């Protein structure tokens, strides 16, 4: 399954990412609780980790187990987030969510990802937002922005790279 997912089968890839997310969420929550950090950061870690898994998928070798690879990326991103939080002074204590819901993310909550998205250029932000909607397709986004599908894909790919760079800049 992982192999199919990594080698271009979109629906297998979606299944893979959706299966990984709850595992990441659970381990992020566990780790944050252990070190006494606000649980509200959980979803930021999950999102940053998913982005890293995606952008670094070529560093997984198909003959190796995938779990340690995922765990290593998750650990790295947890460290990055803590470093980021260490620099920004605003750690709202009252933010601590004492009713951790186990399913998905808070659909109304604002995540770090949104802050990063705002820093992207308008076109990239538009494309990412548009494609994030359920059932969105590249074709329809391309039509709406009067771009070719290829141009949308290229722009999307660059946007993801730019997002990772923004996270990286903030973690320094």
């Amino acid at each position, binding site marked *: 399954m992982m192999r199919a997912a*990594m080698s*271009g089968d*979109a629906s297998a*890839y*979606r299944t893979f*990412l*959706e299966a990984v*997310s709850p595992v990441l969420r659970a381990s992020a929550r566990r780790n944050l609780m252990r070190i006494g950090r606000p649980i509200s950061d959980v*979803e930021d870690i*999950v*999102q940053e980790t*998913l*982005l*890293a898994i*995606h*952008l*670094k*998928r*070529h*560093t*997984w*070798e198909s003959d*190796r187990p995938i779990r*340690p*690879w995922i*765990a*290593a*990326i998750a650990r*790295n991103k947890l460290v990055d987030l803590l470093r980021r939080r260490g620099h920004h002074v605003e750690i709202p204590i009252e933010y601590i969510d004492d009713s951790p819901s186990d399913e*998905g*993310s*808070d*659909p109304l*909550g604002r*995540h770090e*990802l*949104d802050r990063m*998205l705002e820093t992207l250029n308008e076109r990239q932000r538009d494309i*990412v*937002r548009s*494609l*994030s*909607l*359920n059932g*969105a397709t*590249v074709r329809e986004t391309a039509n709406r922005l009067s771009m070719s599908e290829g141009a949308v*894909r290229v722009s*999307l*790919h660059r946007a*993801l790279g730019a997002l*990772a760079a923004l996270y*990286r800049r903030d*973690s*320094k």
Partner: protein
Amino acid sequence: MNTSGLINVLVMDRAPSLSLRRTIAVALAIGAVFTGLVFLPMVGIRPDIAQVAFTWRFIAKAVVVLMIAMSAIGLMLRLARPDGEFGQLKWALWLILLVLTLAVGTELIAVPPAQWENRLFGIHWLFCLCLILLFSLPPFVGLFVALKRAAPRNEGLAGAIAGIAAGGIGASIYVAHCPDDSPLFVATWYSLAIALVALAGLFAGRRLLKW
């Protein structure tokens, strides 16, 4: 944006992702070919290479630098991954040290002490040092461009090992020119040159390989 939105986006990005291993192989090949075709002809291949090719000193020198290059490349391929570990390759490092020590020991026995200094400094040690650094530069640059795609657990360590790999490749090509074969010379100046490249790699890794 919530996480399922992010997954929607990630699934759309299906840009083909060439394996890291292959990227590194291509980068190394380009770097080595550049050194071999541009820098090596500038100083030339030593004229007596056919005669010395089967002397033990020359063979020991070639084996040591090739071993350094190969094991560092192998190690780097591991450490460039988030789950990378040293694994069995740490034995290669001890093996290199052993070969080098044996060669130096043999030389110290074979050559009277009065000549040791002569052998140590060779014909032009400073020239040799600078040339290995120069020869290492193309593989070094190629490697770091390729490693931008990597995701090392420890950026500094991966960078340092990449430096050793680049230094080992530079030194392996330089062997074709270098007129000094004494293990005393190799153990000192080659090691120093490669260590300098490793140090450059450590700093470059910390600065450039964050992911």
